[in-house]
């Protein structure tokens, strides 16, 4: 068996973003610490799509996304002075996103009766209609399955499966241990698979 055919080790951390992007973000962070509003604008421009997508998957709610993005950046600005560069800035950003999403999820869990299954009708602009419909269908199913996970499991699962973060990075982002992340991830995978299977069966046999 060749080296290329060998399986990857268990839960290999995903490669971090390119050094150039990270270095650029870190330079911006330094400027933001000096109250440079333009630097924050640039950082916002570089990260907003990623933040919006992450929050969308973490919460599954399109309608509140605008508020969540705002809240994330306000918190990020408040937290940046405490950022000492001990982790990737991306990890730091995901931590802020995770906290905002967790608060939101807990809030909605308390009012589950109002939590409707939101169909993201306008989620996919700019692609062909058939593909857009497939994406909408898949995203709807995924979000409904994710709704069955606990908030903490959901965050870990989304970070790993949808954001491509490795378990060590997730551990830093959620402020817990590597083993806890693995444990939550395994559990979330089982729950998610089960929920997806049930949802697909329900769709096939209405």
């Amino acid at each position, binding site marked *: 068996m060749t080296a290329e055919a060998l399986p990857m080790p268990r839960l290999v951390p995903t490669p971090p973003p390119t050094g150039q992007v990270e270095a650029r973000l870190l330079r911006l962070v330094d400027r933001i610490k000096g*109250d440079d509003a333009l630097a924050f604008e640039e950082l*916002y421009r570089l990260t907003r799509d990623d933040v919006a*997508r992450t929050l*969308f998957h973490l919460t599954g709610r399109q309608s509140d996304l605008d*508020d969540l993005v705002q809240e994330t950046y306000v918190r990020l600005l408040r937290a940046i002075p405490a950022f000492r560069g001990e982790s990737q800035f991306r990890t730091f950003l995901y931590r802020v996103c995770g906290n905002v999403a967790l608060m939101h999820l807990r809030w909605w869990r308390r009012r589950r009766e*109002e939590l409707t299954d939101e169909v993201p009708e306008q989620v996919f602009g700019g692609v062909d209609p058939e593909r857009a419909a497939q994406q909408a269908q898949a*995203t709807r199913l995924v979000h409904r399955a994710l709704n069955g996970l606990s908030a903490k499991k959901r965050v870990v699962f989304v970070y790993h499966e949808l954001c491509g973060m490795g378990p060590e990075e997730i551990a830093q982002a959620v402020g817990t241990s590597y083993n806890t992340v693995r444990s939550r991830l395994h559990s979330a*995978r089982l729950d998610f698979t089960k929920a997806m*299977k049930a949802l697909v069966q329900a769709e096939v046999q209405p």
Partner: protein
Amino acid sequence: MMRHETERLWALAANELELEDKRYVELHLSDCPECRDGLEAVRLARRALETARSSAPVLAWEATDEKVGALVEKRLRASARPRWIPFALGGGLLATAMLAGVLLWPASAPVEPLPQPPLVEVVAPMPVRVEMARGLTRVAASIEPVAAGETLQSGDVLKTGIAGKAFVHLPDSSHVRVAAATQLALTRAEASDIALTVSRGRIAVRASHEPRQGFVVHAGDVTVQVVGTIFSVSNEAEGVEVAVSEGTVRVASGDEKVLEVRAGQRLVVDARSGKTRLGKLTPALERELGEVQGVAEAVTSAEQQAVVAAAGGSAPRRSSALPRLSSEEAKARQVTPVGPDVAAPPAAEAPPPAPETKTITVEPEAQVEVERWDGPGTLFPSLAGGATRGVPTSRDEAPAAQVPAKPLPAPEGPASEEAEWAAMPKAEPSLAVTLAPAKAEPAPPPKPNQVVVAKPQAKSLEQLFLEKAESSLDKGTCERFLAGLEDIALEGSDQAQLARVLRARCFDAQLRPRQAMGEYVKYLEAFPKGRFAEEARTALGQ
């Protein structure tokens, strides 16, 4: 009995297993139909995830950019504000009050009349002033950042970044809101003639009713002529859009056709075909136009009241036709109250006029306060840090011009802050302090060494904004205040509580219970023991 390998199926599908484990699971799968079904379910779930991963939500980024930008700017401004300023101002005011007390003390010897400096510095003809700027630059030989408080002139070309926004005060007292990613040329910016050119992006204008030769906005082949109204013009690749929320504008397109666009209408001129399409205002446009109107009203109200308060007169009747005092009017108002007929009491007891005349002498610090206002920077983004003329430094600081000639009887004001709010006149709050009793009822002689401090009555722009927002609830026009209220609420100041609750009440009035509940939750998170906590809990059913 063979144990199922359910837990390792996902790892197998994701190729995360060690070689030995992988072989073991694959061997198990060949003998276990249940696990094969399980693996199929895992693959299905992973395919769905793969498809969902590439999906990106669609957001109204322009609005989000603006909101984030406004919030961020406020945070940065708040963190940059020196902490010692309130103490320094307080100390300065105390010293001024003590000095005034010493001067007011009735002396047996006649007091030489002091030369009277002008009560309020005469306001020069207004230049174009930037009231708020975020990501605003001036396009010249190089790109120069423009900050709030800077003045501009005819010929300047302004540009906002993708998350930028600016409010500009024109010489004719009109206000312009420059949206994100906009390029605007101040082709002519004089009190008697305004011409703006929107090369791209969007502006919203609240045009004053000052007499002038003309107010014209050019956008591509379209020319918008204004009389006095609230409207917006955008110039994008698709075409030019003119929207009006108040009044009427005349729009001339390239083919010399002139159309009138009235309040509530939106005209789109297609860039390719030149065809025009008339429609209704969108909610986003209404919000934008409401914001420029709200800012203009707040600025105007504060300026008028501050000028009158400094002059010792009563507040003028508000007129929408004259949103801002012209320099001539301001000059007249500044001069009038200095005369003894206004400032001095009737001559029943024939008191020497000198003390009264002297007491309204404005100390140098007072002139600075009236001329320029740097706070509170915590207002709302359109005004923070702007050089708003004639606004006292803050509500708790009485301008020196308001120090009365004699000790006034203690004002019978409400004790609590809420009661004070309730007691404030809503339609026309007067900031003026009566300098002397109208009738010949001599005031009690001051006690020795008594420091006379007038009750602070000047309201900050923030308070005026809150008042207007509160009164708008009944009128059903609170929508336009939501953005400003959010800014105030995020500041965590005294007014933050009221601002948050007003947002909740506004949403409630608009039959948007989810948003209202969200506001109440935010309120309880920030002020669990606040004065509106009971209202919030009741609304949330707690």
